[in-house]
C-alpha cells in the first residue's frame, strides 16, 4: 500500500485514535483539564468533522474551529458589494462555487443568476481570463476570495491577462492572510488556547518558518498537519507531546509537501503583483495588513478601482458567524442552527461554505 493511502487506512486510524486518547489523558492528569486546540483552516474543520474524529475525541480534546474558511471570514458589506457587482448588463461575474449561495443582505449570487445576470462558476481564475478573451464586448470580473493558497493563483490570472493584452478583465480582491488573523485572535485574548493545528495548504506556499512568531512572541505551539485521518491524529498527538514537554515550538508534520521556506515562485508572484492592505474580517473588524491588494501599477485589473460600488450598512441578522470564526461559540449555541438556518436555507456563510464550521456540524455532528 502507498504511504498516501495509509494516511486514511481504517486500522491505522483506530490505532492513532488510541494513541491520541492516551496522550490526552496524560495531559488531563497533568493540567486537570482537557487540552484546547484551534484548527485554523476550514479544510481541517471539515476533515475533523467528516472523519468522525472530532466527535470521537469530544471527551478528550476540545477542538475549536478558527478563522480559516475564506468565504466565512469575508465581511457582509463586501459580500453585498460582490452580489451588486454581478447585477449589471454587459458584465460576466466569475467566482469559485462556494460563493454562489452565500446570503447577501438582499439575496445571493444564485438568485441574481436566476434573475438573468451572467454569473459563472469557474474551477480556476485562469478560466475567467479565457472567458474575457472570448467576450471582448463585456467586462469580466473574478471574485478573488482566498488565503495564501489561492492568492498566488490570482496573480497568475493577472499575469495571463497582462500577457495577452486583455483590457476587459479585472479581479475583485478580498484576500486574507493567516498570520495577522492568528495574531489578532491571540492579542484579543478572548479565546483560551493551548496550541494550533496549522493549515497544511497555506503552509505549502508560506513555509514552516512563517510560524516562528508563535513560540517566540506568544509562547504558543503549533503543528502543521495534513488532512487525512492519520495525519490529523498524528498532528494532534505531536502537539500534545510538545505541550507535555513544556517547550513551545512548531512541528512540521506535513513535510511531504511543506518545506521550511515554502514555495518561492508563488511568493515571488505575490510580491510582484500585490501589496499589504487592511482587510475587514467578519466579526473581527479591520486588521492591519491582513490582506493583499493589487499594486498601483496593476490598477487596470483592480475591479474595486474600475467599478466603484458603495454599499449601505448590511442588515443585522441573528447569525453568529462572527463569533464562530473567532472560536467563541459552537454552531449549536446559535439559536438558528438547524432551525431557521440549514444548508438548504442558510442564514450565514458558515452554513454554506464547504469549509464552514456550521456546515461541518450540520452535516456530520448533529445529535438528532
Amino acid at each position, binding site marked *: 500500500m502507498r504511504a498516501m493511502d495509509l494516511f486514511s487506512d481504517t486500522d491505522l486510524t483506530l490505532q492513532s485514535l488510541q494513541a491520541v486518547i492516551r*496522550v490526552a489523558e496524560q495531559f488531563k492528569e497533568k493540567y486537570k483539564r482537557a487540552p484546547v486546540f484551534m484548527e485554523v483552516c476550514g479544510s481541517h474543520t471539515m476533515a475533523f468533522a467528516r472523519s468522525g474524529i472530532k466527535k470521537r475525541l469530544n471527551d478528550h480534546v476540545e477542538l475549536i474551529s478558527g478563522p480559516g474558511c475564506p468565504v466565512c471570514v469575508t465581511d457582509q458589506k463586501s459580500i453585498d458589494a460582490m452580489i451588486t457587482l454581478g447585477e449589471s448588463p454587459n458584465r460576466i461575474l466569475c467566482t469559485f462555487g462556494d460563493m454562489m449561495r452565500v446570503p447577501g443582505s438582499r439575496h445571493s449570487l444564485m438568485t441574481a443568476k436566476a434573475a438573468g445576470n451572467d454569473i459563472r462558476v469557474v474551477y480556476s481564475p485562469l478560466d475567467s481570463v479565457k472567458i474575457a478573451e472570448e467576450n471582448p464586448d463585456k467586462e469580466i470580473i473574478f471574485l478573488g476570495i482566498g488565503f495564501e493558497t*489561492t492568492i498566488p493563483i490570482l496573480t497568475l490570472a493577472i499575469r495571463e491577462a497582462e500577457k495577452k493584452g486583455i483590457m476587459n478583465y479585472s479581479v475583485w480582491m478580498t484576500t486574507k492572510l493567516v498570520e495577522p488573523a492568528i495574531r489578532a485572535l491571540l492579542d484579543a485574548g478572548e479565546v483560551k488556547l493551548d496550541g494550533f493545528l496549522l493549515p497544511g495548504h497555506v503552509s505549502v506556499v508560506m513555509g514552516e518558518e512563517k510560524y516562528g512568531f508563535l513560540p517566540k512572541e506568544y509562547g504558543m505551539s503549533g503543528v502543521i498537519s495534513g488532512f487525512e485521518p*492519520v495525519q490529523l491524529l498524528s498532528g494532534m498527538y505531536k502537539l500534545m507531546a510538545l505541550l507535555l514537554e513544556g517547550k513551545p515550538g512548531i512541528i512540521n508534520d506535513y513535510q511531504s509537501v511543506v518545506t521550511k521556506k515554502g514555495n518561492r515562485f508563488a511568493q515571488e508572484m505575490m510580491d510582484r503583483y500585490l501589496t499589504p492592505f487592511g482587510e475587514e474580517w467578519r466579526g473581527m473588524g479591520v486588521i492591519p495588513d491582513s490582506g493583499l491588494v493589487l499594486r498601483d501599477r496593476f490598477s487596470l485589473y483592480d475591479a474595486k478601482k474600475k467599478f466603484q460600488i458603495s454599499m449601505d450598512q448590511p442588515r443585522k441578522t441573528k447569525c453568529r458567524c462572527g463569533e464562530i470564526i473567532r472560536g467563541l461559540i459552537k454552531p449549536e449555541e446559535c439559536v438558528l442552527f438547524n432551525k431557521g438556518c440549514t444548508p438548504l436555507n442558510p442564514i450565514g456563510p458558515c452554513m454554506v461554505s464547504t469549509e464552514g464550521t456550521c456546515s461541518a456540524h450540520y452535516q456530520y455532528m448533529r445529535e438528532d
Partner: protein
Amino acid sequence: MITITEEQALVDVLGSQMYVGILFVPEVKVGDYVLLHAGQAMTVVDETYANESIKEWREIIRESDGPVL
C-alpha cells in the same frame, strides 16, 4: 504527471486526465505526484518523506501501550 510543456502538464487525477499549470513547480518531472489547487500544481509531493513519516508514526503508536478504546 504524464507529459510536461513549459507552463502546463497533463496529469492523472483519480483516473481522469487533465491539464494543470506548473509555473509554481518548475522542478516537476514526469511520474511525480503533485498537490493541486484550483488547476495549479502547488508543490511536488515528496513520497520518501511520506513513507518515512508513516514508519515513524507506527513506531510512536507501538511505543504507547494498552488499549484505551
